[in-house]
């Protein structure tokens, strides 16, 4: 049976993954739009940069983040001076999850935007829409399903983030130890039964996320 400690881990994990997904949503969708529309120089480099977390070992990303955020460095020092401690806090776990999950959202959003016929946007303009309104009334609704799929992928990725998180946030019980970290920890101390119980909970969470996405995707979707 799940224990009170398990509940704490689950809530922490959901909080980290949920906040990370929420924070990455708008910039991720905008980056996807940029990649879909921008045809100028530097496009390839930008695309590679945004996909980097997908191809690098998470621990590599983690150590770079850790170094940059260290209070000894200018960025980390500046953040600390403004009250934002990231290293070895749950916020650090959020940042690690954001970086690792963002490429999935960006790539899904880019594909979704590329599939919207630009001529429909032109028609919306002739019907009186400014570029922003045309985006909100035509492009975004038509790309909605692809973006939603990207959100689910990003959330799932954040839910299971391990490598970068353990580098930036450590594995502090009750503070930064998410499900993925806890499973590893239990296994390390030989408590495989506990580890498997946590695996079961993780599976339930992942299915839950998929179901919610499916439900949201159907709601408001018209006949095809």
């Amino acid at each position, binding site marked *: 049976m799940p224990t009170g400690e398990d509940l704490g881990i689950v809530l922490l994990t959901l909080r980290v993954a949920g906040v990370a997904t929420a924070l990455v949503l708008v910039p991720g969708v905008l980056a996807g739009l940029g990649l879909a529309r921008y045809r100028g120089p530097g496009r390839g480099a930008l695309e590679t940069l945004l996909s980097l977390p997908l191809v690098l070992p998470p621990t590599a990303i983690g150590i770079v983040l850790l170094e940059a955020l260290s209070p000894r460095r200018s960025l980390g020092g500046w953040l600390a001076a403004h009250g934002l401690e990231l290293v070895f806090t749950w916020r650090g776990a959020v940042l690690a999850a954001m970086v690792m999950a963002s490429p999935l959202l960006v790539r899904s959003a880019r594909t979704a935007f590329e599939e919207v*016929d630009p*001529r*429909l946007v*032109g*028609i*919306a*303009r*002739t*019907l*009186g*829409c*400014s570029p922003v309104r045309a985006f909100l*009334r*035509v492009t975004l*609704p*038509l790309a909605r399903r692809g973006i939603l799929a990207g959100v689910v992928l990003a959330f799932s990725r954040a839910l299971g983030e391990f490598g970068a998180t353990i580098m930036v946030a450590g594995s502090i019980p009750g503070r930064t130890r998410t499900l993925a970290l806890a499973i590893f920890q239990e296994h390390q101390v030989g408590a495989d039964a506990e580890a498997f119980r946590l695996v079961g909970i993780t599976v339930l969470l992942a299915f839950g996320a998929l179901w919610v996405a499916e439900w949201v995707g159907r709601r408001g979707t*018209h*006949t*095809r």
Partner: protein
Amino acid sequence: MIEIALTLPLAATTLAVEATLPDGATAVMGPSGAGKTSLLEAMAGLRPRTRGRLVVNGEVLLDGARGVRLPPERRRVGYVPQDAQLFPHLSVRQNVLFGARAPRGRVDGMLEVLELGRLLERHPGTLSGGERQRVALARALATDPRLLLLDEPLAGLDVALRERVLPYLLRLRAEWNVPTLYVTHQLGEAIVLAERVLVLAAGRVARQVPPLALLAAEAPEASAERDLENFLPGRVRTHDAAGGVTRVTLDGGGEMTVPLAREHAPGSAVTLVVRAEDVLVAVEAPHGLSARNVFAAGVADCARAGADVTLRCNLVEGSLAVLVRLTPAAVATLEIRPGVRVWLAIKSHSVRLT
């Protein structure tokens, strides 16, 4: 009046169109790749590389020299692309009302005439080609445009639908008087719908002529085979069962008597189809004639086409024009030429009601 002086680089050539078009409808014709669709898109403001000048009834939409370039949303130009381009995530109603600014009553009237009332809750994916075209037309008209650009609105429609949409376009012209550019490959459509034809070739204006002039230039075999038909929009006034006739009030004014057609309820919109060769011409007011429908008209245009002569006659009462096909001998005997007064007689049984 529309003043066009536009240039736009295309893939194979450069669009360079200069034309001054009076109000009314202009057909744009020419071979594929001549730049017809590009011209419409440039006028709608959808081609950022367009240079030059575009003025519609005194409103400057584009003037490179003065740094004026209205974005598409401020041009108030209704554009109906060839494949309709309806918004797939919206219902027919939401599509039509997407940019609506015409008064509510006018939009409702338009939906009725285009027979879209029953389709309003449907989605574009479930519509036929003709239905999509009508929705796209309604969507553009609902914005109350000052210029209408139609890219082959009747292409891909079957004959019955063509006969239903075509008179609507005519009615539009008569009632709303929106200047219209109308891309078509069908000379027959151009003759019925447009006052003039802009012929494009390789991005340039090859000719700007009355439609009948193109008919005259056609190969004789082609024009002999062409069915020239008049499409006259109107509404059923009464049924006279004893007399065996139905009386129809023409939209442009005047009345037409046709064989009893009870399937069309009084008040309903109908289209009268009359072949050009079924119209008789007299140079004096006829009397004692069995033909029920006699209209005074003026000959506006006259062109030799193949073995025949085609006349375009404007009815004195109302705003409709009627095409008439005669033999050259008849034209010579009656001394028919542009400007003369004639009387057109149409037998009731020559009129088809749709």
